[in-house]
């Protein structure tokens, strides 16, 4: 965002001047991340998670490329080649654990990033495209993580591949052909493993490309902030560098400490032990669950247990699961409240935390076996999940009486320290 007070890049050396007239790369970086990018001065720690997600992706790409130097995508040796990495390759165990734990952490920070956006209304105008690109990244992440998990060719890998490609078989008419096409056969086999390796290598770079669009779309309106009030003057902002680069490094330090604690002291705590058993096409493990970051969606998938409205339960489950994410694409139009931040929406704020509890509840259900009471509980929570977006949020956004918004970001910041910053803050009702 080029606010009028944004500093302009000035080459300081003759070389810089020469380069700036030919390829103004330094000017681009200066304007995107440096002092040329004014940022709201009240961003809290929840605004660190975008950068953390970016770092998580870079960790995945680097460790992934290294792992691919030692991995063999062939069903006869894939599992053994992973063990070869663990036992024989220098530091291979660490790289492998960093990649596996890194996927969990990637999803962890992205979930916080998403809920941050939901709480502060970061999906609202003029940031709808930014939000939708984020959802595209999320879908790509899920596809990538799924295919990566298959590569190990353990029991969970194999049956995950069977189930997830089976989702497409629920589609009427073309479904079975699509599943066969995805698998390259009639059950997961060598053809499947080979192509998943290829696509697992490709998709992170596609994700990287979409992240560039995501950051670009962020830089047009600039960052949202915890008040949801637009930037009005220079007093509301600080330059991104050095203020937020420094703050992001603090967040990164904390992140890496926690990450290292998992990698070195409990690397398997987030995984499933059954994936240390080589794939057996004739036996599904009795306790089969996906990775934790898929649990909420898995719970929605299996919440549909009976046919209704002439649609089979199997298709309902698939529709429900995909709809639970695709629904978020229209969220900017479902929530019509002119107030962005839940800090000033008393009712919506409570409902937000109810929704967080529901999402966590779905996660718990998805991690349990398909028995009562978990099936019934997932059905109730799934119904609430959809009701939250389709019924509750649109109604609340119309009827809610919101709290007075601060006149500016500066005023909100100063009020926090008991200062008024010039004139008395004028309480202004939300329109």
């Amino acid at each position, binding site marked *: 965002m080029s606010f009028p007070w944004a500093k302009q890049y000035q080459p300081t050396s003759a070389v810089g001047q020469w380069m700036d007239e030919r390829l103004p790369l330094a000017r681009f970086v200066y304007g995107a991340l440096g002092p040329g990018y004014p940022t709201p001065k009240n961003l809290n720690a929840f605004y660190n998670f975008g950068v953390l997600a970016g770092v998580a992706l870079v960790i995945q790409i680097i460790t992934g490329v290294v792992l691919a130097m030692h991995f063999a995508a062939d069903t006869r040796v894939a599992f053994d080649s992973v063990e070869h990495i663990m036992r024989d390759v220098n530091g291979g165990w660490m790289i492998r654990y960093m990649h596996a734990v890194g996927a969990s952490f990637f999803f962890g920070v992205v979930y916080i990033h998403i809920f941050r956006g939901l709480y502060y209304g970061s999906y609202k105008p003029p940031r709808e495209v930014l939000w939708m690109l984020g959802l595209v990244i999320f879908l790509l992440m899920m596809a990538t993580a799924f295919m990566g998990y298959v590569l190990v060719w353990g029991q969970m890998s194999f*049956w995950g591949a*069977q*189930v*997830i*490609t*089976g*989702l497409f*078989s629920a589609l009427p008419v073309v479904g079975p052909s699509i599943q*066969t*096409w*995805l*698998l*390259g*056969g*009639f*059950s997961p*086999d060598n*053809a499947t493993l080979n*192509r998943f390796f290829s696509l697992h290598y490709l998709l992170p770079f596609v994700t990287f490309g979409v992240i560039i669009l995501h950051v670009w779309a962020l830089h047009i309106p600039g960052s949202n902030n915890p008040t949801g009030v637009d930037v009005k003057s220079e007093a509301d902002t600080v330059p991104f560098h050095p203020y937020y680069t420094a703050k992001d490094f603090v967040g990164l330090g904390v992140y890496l400490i926690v990450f290292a604690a998992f990698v070195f002291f409990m690397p398997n705590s987030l995984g499933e032990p059954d994936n240390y058993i080589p794939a057996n*096409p*004739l*036996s*599904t*493990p*009795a*306790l*089969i669950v996906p990775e934790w970051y898929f649990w909420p969606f898995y719970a929605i*998938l*299996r919440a*549909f*247990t009976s*046919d209704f409205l002439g649609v*089979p*339960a*199997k298709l*309902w*489950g698939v529709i429900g699961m995909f709809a639970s994410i695709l629904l978020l694409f229209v969220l900017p139009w479902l929530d019509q409240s002119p107030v962005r931040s839940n800090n000033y929406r008393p009712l919506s704020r409570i409902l937000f935390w109810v929704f967080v509890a529901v999402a966590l509840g779905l996660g718990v259900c998805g991690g349990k*076996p*398909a*028995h009562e009471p978990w*099936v019934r509980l997932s059905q109730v929570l799934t119904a609430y999940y959809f009701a939250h977006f389709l019924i509750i949020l649109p109604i609340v956004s119309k009827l809610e009486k919101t709290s007075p918004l601060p006149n500016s970001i500066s005023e909100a910041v100063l009020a926090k320290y008991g200062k008024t910053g010039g004139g008395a803050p004028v309480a202004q009702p939300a329109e």
Partner: protein
Amino acid sequence: MASEVRQATADNLEPGGERRRDFLYVATAAFAGAGVVPVAWSLVNQMNPSADVLALASVDLDLSALQPGQAIKAAWRGKPIFARHLTPEEIAESNKVDVASLRDPQSLADRTKPGNEQWLITLGVCTHLGCVPLGAAEGEAKGDFGGYFCPCHGSHYDAAARIRKGPAPKNLEVPPYTFKSPTAVTIG
């Protein structure tokens, strides 16, 4: 000079008429499109099953050692086969069910060969998303209907491997097979 030529052409154009250049545009785009489609299709089609995967086989099963109440698993075309020796009680129980009340209405007779109703041979592939149901091996959960239970999303099948509860839409599939002798069967 060039502009004069264009001017002249435009003047000669009938209202709503087409220019030779419009035809060239459409023809070029059409040929480009006709070229892209087969190229795109070959890129898609390379992911369909290859010739070695399509080479399917049949398998012979010896059922002689199978006591009533026991089942065996065998591999056929990369998928598990369940061959189950039904007990008289299971046969009676299966025949008692009102076929019309089932999600995928089939009687036990529809699912076995005449004279061999005690041999239930099905694919061990849950018709929901393709996991292998439990219940064939000793000590595995058989679900609420005494047949098979799929651990992936909780589908329950009865002793005739018919879907009774859960998200699966169909009964376990019966593969093509023939009896060579009372206890030898060829699948496929």
